[in-house]
């Protein structure tokens, strides 16, 4: 029996994967390369698949038909909504934080 999934992107790898899939389906290796390109973060393969497992269980991403050994993943509508909410929250916090830094 799988553990109950958490309510939001619980950790950075999940957020990074959702962001990577936001512009189209990708397989594991492409996700790793994309994340490294846009964020500079170098995820380990184990960390990547732990996060992918959680995201699939939450139905925020779904696997598509495999191409060779690799299987592309696609973000779902629920995943996209969650990513959008998470990024809006982050932007709000960032705006407030940066604004206060300028005031200080």
């Amino acid at each position: 029996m799988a553990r109950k999934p958490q309510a939001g992107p619980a950790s950075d790898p999940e957020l990074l994967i959702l962001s990577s899939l936001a512009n189209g389906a990708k397989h594991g290796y492409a996700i790793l390369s994309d994340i490294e390109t846009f964020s500079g973060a170098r995820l380990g393969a184990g960390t990547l698949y732990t996060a992918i497992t959680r995201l699939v269980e939450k139905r925020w991403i779904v696997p598509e038909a495999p191409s060779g050994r690799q299987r592309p993943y696609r973000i779902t509508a629920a995943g996209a909504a969650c990513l959008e909410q998470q990024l809006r929250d982050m932007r709000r916090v960032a705006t407030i934080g940066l604004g206060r830094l300028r005031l200080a």
Partner: protein
Amino acid sequence: MNAIKRWTVSVILRLYPASWRREYGEELAGILMDKRLGPAALLDVVRSATGQQLRIGEPWQILGTPLLVLNLAIIAWNILNPWTYPDSTLDVSPTQRLLFWLPALCVGCWTVLRNPEQGHPGRAAMKSALLTSWPVSLIAVLAAIGILSVVTLGPGDLSGTVTHHGLTITLYDRLGRPTHLFPLFVLPIFNLPFAAVGGCVGGLLARMWLRITSAKMVK
């Protein structure tokens, strides 16, 4: 080089639960084969596999595997230091020990908590006990083919009074009986019903706990 890497990848993939491996194993293997397998990458995969084991692995394997490693370590220590009585002696009556009953209870309890409808706590505890105790049968086999000598100590015996050469294992019997190899060989199987009882008691406790917590939630 590629063959060694393929072998390493297949070994580390075995650390994941079988159901997880069926779903994601091939993809992960593909990525690991393409990337450099340094210590950091290996540690990352081991950490991920441990997490998946704790999340979806079978409780009897999760608890049984460290106990098996502990048992093998005790046996190795016993053979390397056969006369450090009584710390490194192996008890030939493990059912009289808390270390036998506690894992059986825990496996039974965890099995039911993880899968209240379909979990079989007695069966899971038996599997765990068998996984943990098969090295005892191995001792009997090694002794039967003459690789290992078996010395049995009872209450009051002092290790210093026994002298032996070569590879020797020191067993302990509460009644001071000499150890016969066939009973030693079948000991893990003989202990299975006791493990089943321990597992069922653990399962019963878990079901009671679930009933209490669900009653509280209804209120």
